[in-house]
C-alpha cells in the first residue's frame, strides 16, 4: 500500500465514484457529501492500514477535514471551523508531537488482526444501526430550512445564564485543570522505572 502509483489510481477511482454516486443521488449536495464522506472514511481507513505512524497521523488530517465538511453540510459553520481549529490545529499537532517524541516503531506486519477487529466492530455497529435507525421517522415533512450561520446563536447560548453559561464556565475550569495536569505530568525528570521513589 505504500507505493504511490496504485494508491493514486485507487484514490482517483474512489473520488470519482463517490462524487458520481453523490451527484446521482442528491445533486450538488450529494456530490459534496460524497466527497466529504470519502475524505472522512478514506482517511480513517488509511490510518488503520498504514504501517507508518506518521503517515497514519497525516491521514487523520483528512478525516478531520472531512468531518468538518460534513458539519458544513449539516448547517453548522461554527462547528466546522471549531473542528478545524481544534482538531487539526490542536489535537493533530499534539499527535504529531507525540509521534516525534516517541521512539520509532518498526511497524507491524500482522494485519489480519485488524480485519478481525473491523469485522467485529462492524457487526456491532451494524446491529445497532439496523435496529435503531428507522431513519424515515426523522425525515420531516416538508423541506429542511435553509441553514444559517449559527455562531451568534451559539455564542449567545454560551453566555445566557438560562442556557449554557454554567457548562461553559465549567468547561473553562476543566480546560485549565487539564492544562495544568498535562504540564505537570509531562515535566522532565530522570526516573528509574523500577525505583520506589515517588515521582
Amino acid at each position, binding site marked *: 500500500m505504500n507505493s504511490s502509483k496504485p494508491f493514486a489510481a485507487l484514490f482517483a477511482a474512489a473520488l470519482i465514484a463517490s462524487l458520481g454516486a453523490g451527484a446521482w443521488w442528491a445533486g450538488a449536495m450529494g456530490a459534496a457529501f460524497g466527497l466529504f464522506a470519502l475524505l472522512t472514511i478514506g482517511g480513517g481507513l488509511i490510518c488503520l492500514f498504514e504501517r507508518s505512524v506518521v503517515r497514519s497521523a497525516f491521514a487523520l488530517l483528512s478525516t478531520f477535514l472531512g468531518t468538518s465538511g460534513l458539519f458544513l453540510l449539516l448547517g453548522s459553520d461554527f462547528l466546522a471551523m471549531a473542528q478545524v481549529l481544534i482538531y487539526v490545529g490542536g489535537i493533530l499537532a499534539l499527535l504529531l508531537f507525540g509521534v516525534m517524541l516517541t521512539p520509532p516503531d518498526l511497524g507491524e506486519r500482522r494485519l489480519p488482526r485488524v480485519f478481525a477487529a473491523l469485522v467485529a466492530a462492524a457487526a456491532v455497529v451494524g446491529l445497532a444501526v439496523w435496529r435503531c435507525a428507522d431513519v424515515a421517522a426523522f425525515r420531516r415533512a416538508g423541506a429542511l430550512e435553509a441553514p444559517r450561520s449559527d455562531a451568534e446563536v451559539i455564542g449567545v447560548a454560551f453566555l445566557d445564564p438560562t442556557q449554557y453559561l454554567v457548562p461553559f464556565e465549567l468547561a473553562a475550569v476543566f480546560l485549565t485543570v487539564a492544562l495544568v495536569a498535562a504540564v505537570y505530568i509531562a515535566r522532565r525528570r530522570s526516573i528509574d*522505572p523500577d525505583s520506589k521513589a515517588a515521582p
Partner: protein
Amino acid sequence: MGLGAYLCVSAALLVIGIALMLARRNILYVLMGLELILNAANINFVAFARFSASPLDGRMFAIFVIILAAAEAAVALAIILHVVQLFHSVKPSAVDRLRE
C-alpha cells in the same frame, strides 16, 4: 441527503476508530482511534441536530465534546510520553505490570 447517510458515515467512522484502538500495536494509534470515535459521535450529534426541532442542543453538545476531546488528548499524550519513557516501548502490550 437523508439522515441515514450521515449515520452511516458516523457508524463507519466509529467502527474504524474501534478497530484502531484494539488492533494497532502502537499507543499513539489508540489515541487516534479515540479521536475518531469522538468524531463519529460528533457527526451523529450534529446530524440529529440538523434534522430535529431544536438544532442548538445537538450542536452545543458537539462543542463540549470537542472541548473534552482536546483536554483529554493533552493529558493522554502527557501520560503516553511518560509511559513510553518508563517502559521503553510504544507497544501497549509492554505495559503489563498489572498482569497476573
